[in-house]
């Protein structure tokens, strides 16, 4: 069982998200005395009788002044069995930008709704974005159940409606769970509530602790973008030449047949090194240094991959883009693409479609793509790149789009992603 769970929360201030996140920190004793003193003082000042847990994650002064509460904040808490990195994504404004950022590293998404309002437009949008990014599991926290008198029937209606929506986005049974909670009162967050005897499932924290997260690394073929060539040139390691990188997918062992792309050079893994010694096997996410049996010309940006299951090498592909910049995209735009450890020039040849994540419908040839919109584009690259489809191998199918003029990050890209991969979406033929 993996011991580090990365999760993203989405929902608006009104749904009580800050209070829920504050409650998780509070109930896992991640809030220390001086922080608690500070929020107790502030709560008394505001005329409240119990500490306002939302203050634990409240924005900064400059955010309030400049309106940049629109940013992903990272929170940390732990139980004896698992550590959690929580990407807290604000819901109202710029939700695509924030949700995409939080979801890009998340293994689980927690969506929050107000029990009095149920599943709303924003819930559907967030779920669609999480589905697109391939976040494997969802939790619907139905908050403020105290305000609907812990009514089972009302909860069931919300849970069923959300389950139907998640199914239409491609989530299989067992990957989505709805939990009745009250962040304010603590019901079913860390402690099983006596007010919901009809709910037999886990508390939110129990679920986060127990939910299986790591995909089986043996299923995916090996991929490692080369970050840096290690050549010590010291007397002890005079001829040492190792390729440093973090395994993006799969596993690697000494003796494995590999291919170096885009060149297409074949070799055999001689050793898998770390500062703690050589390994007999290394899996996804591990930072290693690979030594190959042959003396090849390999540099940063190349990809070492399983020889019998290598990514395609191409200078053209279609991709979904989540547009994150206030500068709008039009066909013909020249951009930079960073994929793996390589940055290449590219041109957006066609803007094929825009995805309306609210209605789950497709708009053909929209002409432009604006901040927080999601589109499908055809890209032509100045160089050949080894790429996988995002849905097959997220870490080698993901890229960012950079503005060559000022270096801004413009978009998140998903190679080969077609919106029709989300079930329930009908995509018109792309010309």
């Amino acid at each position, binding site marked *: 069982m*993996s*011991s*580090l769970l990365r999760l993203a929360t989405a929902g608006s201030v009104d749904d009580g998200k800050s209070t829920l996140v504050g409650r998780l920190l509070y109930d896992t004793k991640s809030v*220390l*005395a*001086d*922080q608690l003193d*500070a929020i107790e003082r502030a709560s008394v000042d505001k005329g409240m009788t119990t500490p306002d847990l939302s203050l634990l*994650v409240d924005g*900064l*002064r*400059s955010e309030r002044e*400049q309106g*940049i509460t629109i*940013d*992903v*904040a*990272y*929170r*940390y808490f*732990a139980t*004896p*069995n698992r*550590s959690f990195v929580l990407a*807290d994504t604000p819901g109202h404004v710029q939700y695509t930008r924030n949700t*995409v*950022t939080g979801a890009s*590293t998340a293994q689980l998404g927690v969506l929050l709704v107000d029990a009095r309002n149920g599943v709303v437009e924003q819930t559907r949008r967030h779920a669609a974005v999480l589905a697109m990014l391939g976040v494997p599991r969802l939790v619907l926290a139905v908050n403020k159940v105290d305000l609907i008198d812990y009514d089972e029937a009302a909860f069931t209606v919300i849970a069923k409606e959300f389950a139907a929506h998640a199914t239409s986005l491609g989530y299989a049974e067992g990957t989505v769970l709805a939990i009745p909670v009250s962040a304010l009162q603590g019901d079913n967050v860390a402690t099983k509530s006596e007010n919901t005897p009809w709910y037999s499932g886990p508390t939110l924290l129990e679920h986060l602790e127990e939910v299986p997260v790591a995909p089986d690394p043996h299923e995916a073929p090996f991929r490692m973008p080369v*970050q840096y060539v*290690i*050549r*010590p040139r*010291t007397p*002890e*390691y005079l001829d*040492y030449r190792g390729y*440093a*990188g*973090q395994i993006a997918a799969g596993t690697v062992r000494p003796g494995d047949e590999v291919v170096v792309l885009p060149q297409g050079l074949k070799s055999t893994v001689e050793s898998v090194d*770390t*500062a*703690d010694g050589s390994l007999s096997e290394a899996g996804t*996410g*591990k*930072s290693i*240094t690979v030594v190959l049996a042959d003396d090849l010309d390999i540099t*940063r940006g190349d990809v070492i991959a399983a020889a019998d299951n290598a990514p395609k090498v191409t200078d053209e592909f279609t991709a979904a883009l989540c547009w*994150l910049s206030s500068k709008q995209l039009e066909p013909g735009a020249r951009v930079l693409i*960073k*994929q793996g*450890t390589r940055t290449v020039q590219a041109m957006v040849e066609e803007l094929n479609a825009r995805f309306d994540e609210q209605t789950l419908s497709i708009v053909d040839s929209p002409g432009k793509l604006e901040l927080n919109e999601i589109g499908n584009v055809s890209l032509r690259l100045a160089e050949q790149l080894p790429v996988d489809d995002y849905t097959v191998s997220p*870490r080698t199918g*993901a*890229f*960012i789009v*950079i503005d060559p003029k*000022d270096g*801004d*990050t413009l978009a*998140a890209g998903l190679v080969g992603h077609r919106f029709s991969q989300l079930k329930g979406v009908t995509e018109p033929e792309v010309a």
Partner: protein
Amino acid sequence: MTTLEAAADAARDNLAALESEAIHIFREVAGEFDRPVILFSGGKDSTLLLHLAIKAFWPAPVPFPLLHVDTGHNFDEVIAFRDHVVEKYGLRLVVASVQDYIDDGRLAERADGTRNPLQTQPLLDAIADNKFDAVFGGGRRDEERARAKERIFSLRSSFGQWDPRRQRPELWNLYNGRHRPGEHVRVFPLSNFTESDVWNYIAREQVELPSIYYAHQRKVYSRDGMWLTEGPWGGPREDEEVHELTVRYRTVGDGSCTGAVESTASTVEEVIAEVQASRLTERGATRADDRMSEAAMEDRKREGYF
């Protein structure tokens, strides 16, 4: 497997993931920047940073120099440790001295005697003079709220300023280090470590730290609820009584405003037990400058301090 064994397994996995993430960040910077530097104070976070850099490039030497912003209010043990580390790993050390700036009038001593806020100018000058384009810092997002939204690659203007509006979304592990001439990027490989992770990793890796992190006898006096120690920065006022206590430091900063905590933890394992039982955050307990105002850290960050 017992619950305890499962918990121990979980902790190992978590540290392995954090280590791989930090190593990946070091290698990205080495691959994409011309003149990176590691900010090194001799404190535990920067020592951990250096340890991870050594692991990232092994068996080659670390391809970056160290930069120490020296407030002149140092603990002797920490300076000795700094010099020991530099020699042991054959590193190049650049020192930016606050004392030099005070001596020649470019900076004025503050009324309260603390020099933490004075570090900004020498730091920015050292970055500009040496044309450093990536500056590694030991900042962690769990330290306090101003850092919860900090990026791993944090873009700074040519004035060293952090403009929240120009910070880029960070997706997957694809960091964008593009910057204009004169700008630089602060890089935080320990972003996702918590204080408890830092200590557990130090224990696992047997990382050597300055001795003041462990319990020792020290003459201290109480000011604003903190145990301060006498030094070149001054000492107790007449109304402040000096006690000899068994203390240790949880953070190492400017001696005039870094407080000791009463502790008998003399090994890393005892420190971990203490941290886990602690009811005060490390900054709240030991940094006078952070307690001055709720937004103190945020202000300093905008000025170009970390």
